[in-house]
């Protein structure tokens, strides 16, 4: 129906052309998916570290962690990507576009996941800490065997949401010329001067990944979201 409407407006849809460019855009999609998976891995690990640093009783550990989290959350991802890719080389740190992208995604989302971890940790009952003291468990054992195993399941739905959100942010890669689905579609469009098909195919591919992901996140919420 959309196509009929579009054609009536003088647009055209060339199916043969759309199928021809499909593999190239799919390759771009694959790059975006890989960047997202690497990025969320960095984000999940960094977020946990930041959450623990933020809870530290030592001020010179806690305050820088808070400052970093608030600073990164208050600036746009695209600006951070530009900074990482174009500014850091001036300080001797030159990253490839892909590495700059996954570091940017990971750090940006790490500050968000850290807040989720924090909420998950705060939700562990005080009695669990007290029982750990009564059993004379070390700080490390208390965290790794008692607190985190209870906190992390409650955080999993939030992490799933960030995964989907990051996937939709990953095309910002185009700003630093890192590969990805948007760059693939754009280079076809600018070569052929036929933008309708590549950008439409791209949009459909996003839906094809995003909708199942969202359903998966909803499943995670059912599985882990409630107090057991």
């Amino acid at each position: 129906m959309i196509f009929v409407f579009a054609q009536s407006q003088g647009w055209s849809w060339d199916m043969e052309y759309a199928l021809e460019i499909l593999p190239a855009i799919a390759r771009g999609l694959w790059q975006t998916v890989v960047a997202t998976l690497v990025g969320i891995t960095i984000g999940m690990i960094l977020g946990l570290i930041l959450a623990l640093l933020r809870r530290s009783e030592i001020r010179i550990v806690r305050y820088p962690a808070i400052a970093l989290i608030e600073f990164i959350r208050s600036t746009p991802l695209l600006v951070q990507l530009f900074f990482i890719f174009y500014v850091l080389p001036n300080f001797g740190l030159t990253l490839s576009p892909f590495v700059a992208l996954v570091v940017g995604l990971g750090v940006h989302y790490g500050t968000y996941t850290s807040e989720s971890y924090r909420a998950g940790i705060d939700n562990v009952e005080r009695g669990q800490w007290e029982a750990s003291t009564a059993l004379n468990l070390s700080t490390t054992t208390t965290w790794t065997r008692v607190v985190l195993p209870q906190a992390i399941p409650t955080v999993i739905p939030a992490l799933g949401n960030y995964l989907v959100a990051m996937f939709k942010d990953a095309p910002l890669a185009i700003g630093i010329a890192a590969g990805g689905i948007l760059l693939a579609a754009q280079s076809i469009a600018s070569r052929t001067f036929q933008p309708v098909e590549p950008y439409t195919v791209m949009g459909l591919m996003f839906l094809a990944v995003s909708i199942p992901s969202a359903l998966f996140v909803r499943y995670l919420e059912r599985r882990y979201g409630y107090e057991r």
Partner: protein
Amino acid sequence: MATRDRDTNGQPMVRLDKINLSFGENHVLQDLDLTVAPTEKVVIIGPSGSGKTTILRVIMTLNRPDSGYVVIDGRHLYHEEKNGELSPAREKHVRDVRTDISMVFQHFNLFPHMTALENLTLGPMKVLGLSKEEAEERGIELLEQVGLGEKAGHYPGYLSGGQKQRVAIARSLAMRPKVMLFDEPTSALDPELVGEVLAVIKDIALQGETTMMLVTHEMGFAREAADRVLMFDGGNIIEEGTPEKILREPTQTRTKAFLRAVLSH
């Protein structure tokens, strides 16, 4: 029980010396002195909000006193002795002394993501250095002792309140403490489940070796199992003696009023 021979000249198992603790304006413990002999069973009674639970929490290091000393089996809990001088203890020293103490909570505080047996083996493996096999063997033994041998593989969510508390008691026993603290161990239970928990605690009391301090409103239990009853009110002990004396012939008006209130319901 009160007539049991005890070396009263020996070193106390627990000694509190001029303990003060305030929560804001509320002076919960006021210059509290208390001595508990090895293997002695002490029941602490008193109105709610009087701070009797706080005594146990101070001994368990869950609340640090503002001032005063806690000595467990001859060793300072919050202080380290160096060249005859006391200085605030480092965490390592506190942990070291704390191995002698364990606590059973009103709300059980079992680890919900571990089976009953795993609840019992974590401490012995991580703190006492037992192997998994040793810890599990002893864990099963203790679960059987509290009548829950067949529940070893169950998660706390599938146990009744009374069963949870019995697992929690077994978990405390697994640490082989010299001193066991019980903070209102039956207050969170449905009335019909109180008996099974008290029976387990009485069992431990009758075995004799462990020094026990209980905060409870179960006067029947105090009468049968306690060597000494302490009446606590207004931040300090106002009256103490054998269960017979305190429960039958209290001298303080506040003790009489409290007992009337507890026994009449």
